[in-house]
């Protein structure tokens, strides 16, 4: 016996150990083990006798009734001997040889012995009662068992080595095809040889003698005891075949073949992807040829029982691989051009391609399972690159649509969200990403996920994750919030969310969801403050006197943020509206009209309830006399109108329309109040003198204006070619434009800078506040570091927020700048992010 046969024997020790060779005819022996009962010991004859009697009452065939136990045993032994000798395979030919059991050789005594053993030998015991139920008699079973043992021995001794050799030849796809075909043929021949005695001799006897009278009579021809017996034997034989082959090798060979066939069928190999050309019908890759070849092979294998469960498993593995192949193949690349999902393609492939392939291979297979698997694979592949798709949102909608089908199960959702948040962590939420980037991505994420899941509920967790992390990233960057507000809210005045007159069930529009998500990113208070600042600035600068859009927006914000929170904004809007009416009223006042000294000067005022407005610029300076007069008159008019309330003028805010009449030209401009004041100061001179000269210090004095403002204004007018610098810090009006006069680039730059400065927000910016409160912050920082010792910036920031009156509205970065400045002055010492006082 070969080694593998020994191994096989070690697994089935009893069967080989107890197998008997045919008993010699000459030695019938009553006292020995009952042949045909390899697994059981001899039973006491008396017991068998009683049992058979009991059974006999139900048995139509009562031939055995008359026999004594001894006679019975002798007869059995004789019959057994004859039958086994007849069926013995010893000396049977190797494969390819001639079948030994010719019909002619079935002598009458053999026939008799077989018939008796199969039909009459009613030896049963309790443990084998079950066999009755499947229509097999004890005798026939015993004989068949013996025969199967015989077959097994013969097979293992003769064919096994050849099979092993054949299996060993399988190294690649081609050899797998060939070897499997060979094995199928070989098994076919062997099976035929082994089955011959059963089909030719045993089955006919059983069919003739047993089935009809069987109490469990079955009408179906295929279910007669005889056919069942044959089937049983065949099954055993197939098991033997299957077991004789190395399961792993067999599995691999089959899987190879299946996968190869699939690849050829769907043209998944690389060569096809290059051109995608259809192979000619005759070639090896022709789909129909492939499928036929495979079917042939499978049918052959099925004949010998090799296409059973194991083959299904191999097939499953192959399909598994095929799916991967397909997902990775050129067929389902992200569709960047048509911007659509390739899911339909994938599904079509599964339904029409894979399913057909599968059903060709196995008649009963559920495609849904396969398609689910394929969808999962593609989904996972898409999830792996989800971040890339998200940041390329819109063009990547195909990928998102793919995912939409994937996330039908909770597991898939979890996979997607965990995976995606990992990607976010890795790729977005790092120190290098800017606020704008993060916000952009955030918007994309919301859009993409909206597309994925319009209800949006199930990704709340996911969004919360991003919100949480984004919050952390954003909070210190107050600049970021500034930019964002302007971009989203005021940069585009045409932007209006969807109507809100719909009921609560009305599906919110996507843009709104994004807005609310974004709103949730910011601290509500911070957001409202920022909104107030922007609105204030906007209102003061706005040239429109109608504020419909602003009111509209305010209403929308109210819905979102709550009425009470936006009270200040409302007051601000009403202020500007009321100002219009007050202006009209006062202008119509005869007292006011009378004080209009210079008819060309007119004044219109914005009356602001300073309590509600954000901190405003308060630089004060002397306005031109006519304006001052008007202001006085206006104030008294207002006092009369508004029950003695007083006005406090904010000279720096506002705009002035200026018309300059120079000797050779007219200049008309809309400028800022201090610019107007400065240019007005040049006019004050007596008529007839040379063009007035003013020095910066003079201007500072007469106008009671900040020097920086004066310089800014002068630079502005120089840029406009109205003033010229006649001596250092001394300027005069450029009455006549020199012929060659074009402003130099330096002047232009200065003017541009001045203009930019002029455009500076009417509302104090956080930077202004930082500079203003600098001294206080510095004291707090010094006090903190003196007493608490070394601290890192984060902790300092937290402490400042806690102890500084009115809060510390700046981020870590501003604090760092402040500390660095203090470090330069030698007050504090920084080590990385930790600071301590210099002792």
């Amino acid at each position: 016996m070969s080694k593998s046969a020994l191994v096989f024997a070690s697994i089935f020790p009893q069967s080989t150990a107890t197998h008997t060779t045919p008993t010699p005819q000459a030695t019938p022996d009553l006292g020995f083990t009952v042949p045909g009962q390899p697994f059981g010991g001899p039973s006491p004859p008396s017991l068998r006798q009683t049992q058979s009697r009991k059974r006999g009452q139900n048995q139509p065939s009562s031939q055995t009734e008359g026999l004594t136990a001894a006679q019975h045993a002798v007869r059995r032994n004789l019959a057994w001997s004859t039958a086994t000798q007849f069926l013995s395979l010893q000396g049977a030919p190797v494969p390819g040889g001639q079948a030994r059991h010719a019909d002619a050789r079935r002598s009458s005594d053999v026939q008799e012995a077989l018939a008796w053993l199969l039909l009459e030998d009613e030896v049963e015991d309790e443990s084998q009662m079950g066999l009755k139920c499947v229509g097999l008699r004890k005798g026939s079973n015993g004989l068949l068992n013996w025969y199967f043992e015989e077959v097994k021995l013969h097979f293992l001794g003769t064919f096994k080595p050849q099979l092993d050799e054949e299996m060993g030849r399988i190294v690649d796809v081609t050899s797998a095809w060939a070897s499997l075909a060979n094995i199928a043929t070989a098994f076919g021949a062997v099976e035929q040889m082994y089955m011959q005695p059963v089909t030719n001799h045993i089955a006919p006897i059983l069919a003739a003698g047993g089935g009809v009278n069987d109490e469990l009579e079955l009408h179906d021809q295929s279910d007669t005891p005889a056919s069942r017996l044959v089937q049983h034997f065949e099954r055993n034989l197939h098991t033997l075949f299957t077991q004789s082959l190395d399961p792993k090798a067999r599995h691999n060979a089959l899987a190879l073949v299946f996968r190869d066939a699939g690849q050829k069928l769907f043209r998944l190999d690389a060569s096809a992807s290059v051109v995608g050309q259809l192979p000619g019908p005759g070639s090896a890759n022709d789909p129909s040829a492939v499928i036929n070849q495979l079917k042939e092979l499978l049918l052959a294998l099925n004949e010998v029982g090799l296409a059973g469960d194991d083959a299904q498993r191999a097939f499953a593995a192959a399909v598994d691989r095929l799916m991967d192949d397909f997902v990775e193949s050129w067929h389902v690349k992200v569709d960047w051009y048509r911007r659509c999902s390739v899911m339909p393609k994938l599904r079509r492939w599964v339904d029409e391609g894979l399913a057909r392939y599968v059903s060709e291979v196995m008649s009963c297979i559920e495609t849904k399972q396969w398609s689910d698997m394929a969808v999962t694979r593609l989904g996972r592949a898409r999830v792996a690159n989800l971040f890339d798709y998200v940041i390329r949102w819109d063009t990547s909608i195909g990928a998102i649509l793919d995912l939409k089908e994937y996330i039908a199960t909770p597991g898939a959702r979890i996979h997607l969200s965990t995976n995606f948040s990992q990607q976010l962590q890795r790729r977005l939420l790092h120190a290098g990403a800017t606020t704008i980037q993060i916000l952009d991505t955030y918007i994309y994420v919301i859009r993409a996920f909206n597309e994925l899941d319009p209800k949006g509920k199930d990704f709340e967790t996911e969004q919360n994750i991003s919100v949480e992390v984004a919050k952390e990233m954003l909070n210190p960057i107050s600049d970021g919030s500034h930019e964002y507000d302007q971009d989203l809210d005021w940069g585009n005045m045409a932007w209006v969310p969807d109507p809100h007159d719909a009921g609560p069930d009305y599906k919110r529009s996507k843009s709104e969801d994004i807005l609310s998500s974004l709103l949730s990113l910011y601290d509500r208070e911070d957001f409202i403050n920022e909104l107030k600042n922007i609105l204030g600035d906007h209102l003061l600068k706005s040239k429109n006197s109608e504020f419909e859009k602003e009111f509209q927006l305010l209403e929308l914000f109210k819905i979102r943020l709550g009425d009470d929170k936006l009270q200040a904004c409302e007051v601000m809007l009403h202020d500007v509206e009321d100002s219009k009416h007050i202006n009209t009223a006062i202008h119509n006042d005869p007292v006011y009209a009378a004080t209009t000294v210079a008819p060309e000067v007119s004044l219109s005022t914005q009356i602001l309830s300073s309590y509600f407005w954000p901190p405003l610029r308060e630089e004060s300076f002397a306005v031109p006399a006519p304006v001052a007069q008007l202001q006085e008159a206006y104030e008294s008019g207002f006092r009369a109108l508004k029950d003695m309330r007083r006005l406090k003028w904010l000279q720096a805010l506002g705009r002035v329309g200026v018309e300059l009449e120079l000797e050779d030209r007219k200049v008309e401009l809309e400028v800022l109040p201090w610019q107007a004041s400065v240019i007005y100061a040049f006019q004050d001179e007596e008529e007839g003198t040379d063009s007035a000269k003013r020095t910066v210090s003079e201007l500072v004095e007469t106008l009671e204006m900040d020097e920086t403002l004066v310089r800014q204004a002068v630079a502005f007018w120089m840029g406009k070619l109205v003033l010229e610098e006649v001596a250092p810090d001394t300027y005069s009006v450029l009455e006549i434009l020199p012929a060659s006069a074009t402003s130099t680039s330096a002047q232009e730059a200065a003017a541009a800078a001045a203009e930019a400065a002029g455009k500076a927000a009417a509302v104090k910016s956080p930077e202004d506040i930082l500079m203003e409160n600098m001294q206080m912050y510095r004291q707090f920082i010094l006090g903190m570091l003196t007493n608490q010792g070394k601290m890192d910036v984060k902790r300092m920031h937290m402490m400042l927020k806690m102890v500084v009156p009115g809060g510390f509205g700046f981020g870590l970065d501003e604090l760092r700048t402040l500390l660095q400045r203090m470090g330069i002055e030698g007050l504090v010492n920084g080590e990385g992010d930790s600071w301590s006082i210099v002792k």
Partner: protein
Amino acid sequence: MSAAAAVSSPTKAPQASQATSSNNTNVTKRLQSELMTLMMSPSPGISAFPNENDLLNWIATIEGPSETPYAGLTFKLSFKFPSTYPYTAPTVTFKTPIYHPNIDFSGRICLDILKEKWSAIYNVQSVLLSLQSLLGEPNNASPLNGQAAELWDKDPTEYKRLVLARHRDLSDEELQEEQ
């Protein structure tokens, strides 16, 4: 500086803790304004600041007055404000080891204005100024540290040596532990 510093024996005054929320806000307000004053009009040589997340616990710093044995040394103190502050005195202890007739080795201070003579008109700043002057003008009549009281007059050199021997600046870690 002439802050009257009558000395009494140190008893740990149990702090009444009838902290109601309104009380707490009052304390917080008062302490916040005290801090603001301290920060914006600082007195030389003294400083104080609340601990992280706890406005009722402060760390203060006193620089030893010049021309005293403590010149050039820095001392850390802890202020614990009861919820009844300013009607009850804060508990003030030296954290930096100090050798002084009216301060024991665990940092407890014997100073009348922190005990029975406390009044709501005192504040962190005045307490710190009193303590600073106590360093230069100990009350040797009722000392907590008898040896120090004796040496103060008898052997200023030995006194100074002992002051320096006892003094040790707290590390940042130790300061954090205080919180």
